[in-house]
């Protein structure tokens, strides 16, 4: 880690706001599915709030991200508006993608969310291309590719990291190591003890950080993003975290060691960081409580808006397949 000063109070509070939003949104998502108000495949990001919140604090609106099916936290941290997001989750025409993409394919170019893929490993090769466009434009944009530890075992990861290094692309690969690839534990599926070690094969810096620690994650992301922006090439960040829930909502997660899971939940990074902010004098209890209440209200509004919106017309089946609608 560098000895540079950490983020200022405004930045820290903004990071917390993202984390609180992700946590509240996740809790609401599960409730909405549980009560039958919405039917959708849902991959909870609970427990992984810090990573995109700290990464996004170093990104501009115009920077790109490519993320994956477990990606609501990445999207919200990058600024996808709640109403557009919820309307998409509800399959409504007012959604980010007119209801045609759904939870696994949220796209919102205005906030830089260019691709959300449901295929493990596929965020990285496309992120390279976006980074190549920035390299050609010399516009200083950076692309972040988010993915899980399981994706570091798929060919696309290796092809993408190799190309990014050979072409010195302004891309940052952020592996959210939550210890699980679907139902299989990290060590059972991954030959390397650390994903970060794999960066050495591609001659790029590989950094492992505690992805539940805001300051550590922020510092690593800042270094990598600055390096990319300066034209010095890609970085692989392995951010260690833990998935609080099963792979997909409804998965009873019997394969997860209950003690390990309880320990992770007991060390929940969101209240931990909240307490730290107050303790260090960056924010007051009342201020944060008001922020959380505002987030809850915003989520209420978004859900109401989504559920009151129209479904897309069936004619949408023939639209957006090609630029020109089929006759």
């Amino acid at each position, binding site marked *: 880690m560098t000895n540079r000063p950490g983020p200022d109070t405004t930045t820290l509070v903004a990071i917390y706001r993202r984390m609180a939003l992700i946590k509240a949104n996740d809790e609401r998502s599960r409730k909405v599915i549980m009560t039958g108000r919405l039917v959708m495949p849902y991959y909870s990001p609970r427990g992984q709030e810090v990573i995109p919140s700290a990464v996004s604090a170093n990104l501009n609106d115009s920077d*790109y991200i*490519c993320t994956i099916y477990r990606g609501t936290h990445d999207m919200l941290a990058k600024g996808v508006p709640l109403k557009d997001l919820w309307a998409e989750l509800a399959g409504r025409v007012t*959604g*980010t*993608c*007119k*209801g*045609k*993409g759904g939870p696994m*394919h949220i*796209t*919102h*170019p205005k906030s830089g969310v*260019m*691709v959300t*893929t*449901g*295929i493990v490993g*596929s965020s*990285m*090769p*496309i*992120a*390279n*291309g*976006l*980074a*190549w*466009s*920035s*390299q*050609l*434009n010399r516009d200083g944009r950076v*692309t972040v590719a988010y993915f899980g530890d399981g994706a570091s075992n798929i*060919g*696309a990861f290796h*092809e*993408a990291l*190799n*190309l990014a290094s*050979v*072409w010195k692309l302004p891309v940052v690969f952020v592996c959210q190591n939550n210890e699980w690839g679907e139902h299989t534990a990290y060590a059972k599926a991954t030959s390397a003890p650390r994903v970060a070690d794999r960066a050495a094969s591609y001659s790029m810096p590989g950094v492992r950080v505690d992805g539940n620690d805001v300051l550590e994650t922020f510092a690593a992301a800042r270094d990598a993003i600055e390096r990319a922006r300066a034209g010095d090439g890609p970085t692989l960040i392995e951010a260690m975290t833990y998935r609080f829930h099963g792979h997909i909502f409804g998965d009873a997660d019997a394969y997860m060691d209950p003690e390990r899971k309880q320990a992770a939940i007991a060390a929940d990074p969101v209240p931990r960081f909240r307490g730290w902010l107050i303790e260090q004098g960056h924010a007051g209890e009342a201020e944060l409580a008001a922020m959380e209440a505002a987030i809850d209200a915003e989520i209420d509004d978004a859900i109401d808006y989504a559920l009151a919106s129209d479904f897309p017309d069936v004619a949408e089946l023939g*639209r*957006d*397949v*090609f*630029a020109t609608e*089929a006759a």
Partner: protein
Amino acid sequence: MGNITILESINRALADAMEADETVLVLGEDVADPEDGGVLGVTKGLSTRFGDHRVRSTPIAEQAIVGAAIGVSLGGYKPVAEIMLMNFTTVAMDMIVNHAAKLRFMSGGQTNVPIVIRTMTGSGFANGGQHSDYLEAWFAHTAGIKVVAPSNPSDAYGLLRSAIDDPDPVIFIENLPTYFTKGEAPESGHRVPIGKAHIVREGSDLTIIAYAKMVQEAAAAVEALAGRGISAELIDLRSIAPWDRETVLASVKKTGRAIVVHEAVTPFGAGAEISSVIHENLFHALKSPVQRLGAAFCPVPFSRPLEAAFAPDAAAIEAAAAALLA
């Protein structure tokens, strides 16, 4: 015949497109001049002329190539990615089928993927089972992808320029054994609309629908049939997805008989789709059932006599046509 080969006309189309639009890029294995401008020299001269930032040789990594093409197109560029051989597209199917084809629809039209994937293939060069397949039906079966396969230099130029202009992904299939077939040179800037077939020769007894190298084989068959008093109409489909139903149906309505010829294996091929549409629309106008003529249902074989017997040729097309009229 003419004065330019298919290979040269593809090179010219790329150069003219890059000259006309600086967002046009070329990437793929060996495509830049230090790597010989492609294994057969299709992209020769481009990196020297336009710079190695616009013409980039890549690692042998098809997912990375197509992924980079998709991403750079989302960033506003128009990349032409070379996947050296069509069989190698199978290594990048996730990028092509799950991403290039679907991002426009899944994003509700917010993004689109204006990429061209150039790829060569074709039996007849003793390349065996993993270097010669025609897989056009796989892509034509995927919503969101266009597929074209020119048979002559002028169409190769015009279709490639149209493919580069197109706002959606296009698979551009080049036939290796006919790269050096000569033909008339296209005018600079020539365009062949995607989805528009060409009537190579008019006839009244039957319609032969073909594309790529099979057009050359069918042209020889049509000549031989004329000598036997059979008047065959030859349609060069040029685009497989979308294909020109209007031209095909008008022709078959006139002749009442049709044979669809392709180098891909027959079962579940493009011929099945075309034949089915003809039957659905012209059942009562048909004088006999539509015939399909494709390759044997086996991997492309190596041994010379086996490979020679694998795909349809002029003699097989002539025989099938004569049988239809017998």
